[in-house]
């Protein structure tokens, strides 16, 4: 990675180049609904499309440009990748779907992996040849990662793994998994018994069962390990350091400067999209957007969305955060996911009769986008700690209320 920070004009030139490329190569609507997030890849058709797109973007030199050249990057400054990410967003491109590889496993391997690890894994992550998944959550422990019970027992040059993981995104397509497993069940602190593995997904004793979501689609699997042997060389960060490595892994998500390869992690959904799409909807024989009750509700949602953006900026103004220092940061996940839920739910509600149709029906608005977007949003109000757990955390850590 280059230490030399690029000048504003270098960045502007680069951005113009990327923009030009995207104008030519941003894929046309394929005629089927594309996933808005990597958690929604539910069909081979979607997978093939996204794999081809990521490969094309990487081949053009626009993914992981700040990763080392010998592993498939271009050794450029992270600021260049940030420019690309902005352009991808602006052009509303499809997502770069290999998110666990690009944002979690890749940067981790570059940080603490061996030379062999880097040579083996990095290029496949960028090119989308090797899909990665994440094995943190377990069926009985939801948000409580520290309590993971999947066992890994050393046996010669292997570990023998037993247990199961749930909500494995693209588990049925992935070649590798970042796996958090318990190597020592006797430690005093539960966190100290965990280890982190770069585990293969194909092998005897590793099975996946697709989970059908409320949308009717697939995207997650449950993953079962039954006396599965994985090479001891899959261990990363040393035995017993799994919790620390897992926490480190979560840091990379914050952007190119933090190490992530970049790309377009999710298609953002804004109230502006909703308003545009319901302009033609009628209510009581008149345009929906003339209904005073609808107008009032839409304004409330516009305000909610704007407040999120303002809070993001306000969180950097020290004097305006001294009263409740962690408030805006700790509540961000709750506020954004709950806002999206309300907004998407309303996006469906105001469609009148069309809200009763579903993806696959030719009369739907935007192919049933809002129907699916609302249902899929529960991944964010449940995943990563439910909204109810978030309220406990905020109540206890920001307001200092007693533990529940």
């Amino acid at each position, binding site marked *: 990675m280059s230490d030399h920070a690029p000048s504003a004009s270098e960045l502007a030139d680069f951005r113009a180049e990327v923009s030009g490329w995207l104008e030519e190569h941003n894929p046309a609507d394929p005629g089927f609904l594309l996933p808005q997030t990597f958690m929604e890849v539910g069909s081979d058709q979607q997978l093939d499309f996204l794999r081809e797109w990521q490969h094309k973007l990487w081949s053009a030199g626009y993914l992981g440009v700040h990763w080392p050249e010998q592993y498939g990057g271009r050794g450029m400054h992270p600021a260049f990748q940030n420019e690309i990410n902005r352009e991808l967003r602006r052009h509303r491109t499809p997502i770069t779907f290999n998110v666990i590889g690009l944002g979690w496993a890749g940067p981790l391997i570059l940080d603490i992996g061996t030379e062999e690890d880097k040579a083996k894994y990095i290029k496949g992550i960028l090119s989308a040849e090797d899909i990665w998944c994440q094995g943190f959550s377990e069926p009985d422990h939801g948000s409580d990662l520290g309590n993971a019970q999947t066992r890994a027992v050393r046996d010669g040059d292997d570990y023998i793994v037993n247990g199961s993981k749930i909500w494995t995104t693209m588990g049925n397509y992935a070649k590798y998994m970042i796996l958090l497993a318990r190597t020592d069940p006797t430690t005093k602190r539960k966190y100290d018994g965990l280890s982190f593995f770069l585990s293969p997904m194909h092998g005897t004793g590793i099975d996946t069962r697709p989970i059908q979501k409320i949308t009717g689609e697939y995207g997650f699997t449950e993953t079962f390990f039954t006396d599965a042997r994985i090479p001891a060389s899959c261990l990363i960060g040393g035995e017993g350091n799994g919790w620390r490595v897992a926490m480190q892994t979560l840091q990379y998500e914050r952007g190119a400067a933090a190490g992530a390869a970049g790309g377009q992690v999710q298609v953002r959904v804004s*109230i*502006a999209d909703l*308003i*545009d799409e319901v302009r033609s909807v009628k209510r009581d024989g008149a345009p929906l*957007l003339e209904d*005073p009750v609808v*107008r*009032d509700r*839409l*304004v*409330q949602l*516009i*305000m*909610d969305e*704007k*407040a999120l*953006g*303002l*809070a993001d*900026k*306000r969180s950097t*103004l020290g*004097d*305006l955060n001294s*009263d*409740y220092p962690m*408030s*805006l940061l700790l*509540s961000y996940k*709750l*506020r954004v996911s709950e806002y999206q839920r309300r907004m998407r739910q309303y996006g469906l509600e105001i469609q009148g009769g069309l809200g009763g149709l579903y993806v696959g029906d030719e009369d739907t608005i935007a192919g049933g986008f809002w129907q699916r977007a609302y249902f899929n949003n529960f991944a964010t109000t449940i995943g990563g700690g439910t909204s*109810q757990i978030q*309220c*406990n955390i*905020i*109540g*206890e850590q*920001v*307001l*200092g*209320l*007693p*533990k*529940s």
Partner: protein
Amino acid sequence: MKKSNMAIGLSEEQGMLLDTAREFCRDRSAIPAVRALLQSESGFDAQVWQEIAELGWLGVAVSEAHGGSGLGMGSAIPIVECMGKRLLSTPYITTLLVAEALQRAQSHALCERHLPAIVGGQIATLALLESEDWGEETIELTASDAGGDLQLAGSKTQVAYAAQAELFLVSATYQNEARLLLVPASALGEGAVRRQTNIDETRRSSRVDFTGATVSSDHLLSGDAAAIIRDLRLLGALLYAAEAAGSTAACMDLTVDYLKTRKQFGHLIGSYQSLKHPMVEVLCDMDNARSFVYHAATLVSEASLDEDAESACRMAKAQASEALKFAADRAVQFHGGMGFTYECDAQLYIRRAQWSQQAFGDAYHHRKRLASLLLD
């Protein structure tokens, strides 16, 4: 939908004012002091008012030529927020707005004559509202020519601190046009001021009958009165939003303290999620209100307010009104039987919430106008 203006900042001056005001309001307006003023005639402490003037706060938005510091209305926001947090009620907001109107009208002679006194602590107040309808544009009060002077007919309601004010800024219809004019208290007839009973006992307001009051025609403000009135209403909404944001935080702190100390069924009640989670909602509402308030404070300027500034002021008022209303409602409920008593401080906030929400238009009033700005 057009792209949203997301400007928000805090200037060095605003930051310093925030620090000073936080300390001043905490010292001068502890809850016993607030309660001691509830039944008083004026509703505020004259000594504190004088100190506010000496701190230069009445002149933050007044030009230096007229004795102020010329920092702009955005600089009053941290001050008012801190006043809200300590329930420190004075004629501050209404006096600021009169000074602002004089400057916006660019009536030089009137500015020369009145602004230095106002900066020094002369109480001035706005007389705009004629009924319960904050959305009414027609002005019933009239001014008519009477031998070179102007004679008024009509009355105004909810005129803040009318009994203490030395100067009234009155909206009137004159020659079929909306105009603003200054009326000194001395021009009012006997019994013209009837004190109203406010739901929030930290406030003072009156119905004022201007009928028969006569002033010379140089009391008319120049400029486009309709535009100035519109800006005053937006700035008033913003100022009361800032105050409400401060009061919301204080109300939340009061409830949180109780939830941390009160035990029922063997547990601190704050450990129950049915009480804890709504408090997180209060916190998020308060945070959003603050974000809108400081966003608007960043956008308001001496010039006529543009659409972005208008939108920001309206959002601030809509959000802060709802935030305080919810925080205060839950404060009473979560204090249980105590919360139902006058002795419990929750009453101060639930009364304030009802008063504040209507001041310069309630949440729906502003959202209705936002809909036109944002959806059409």
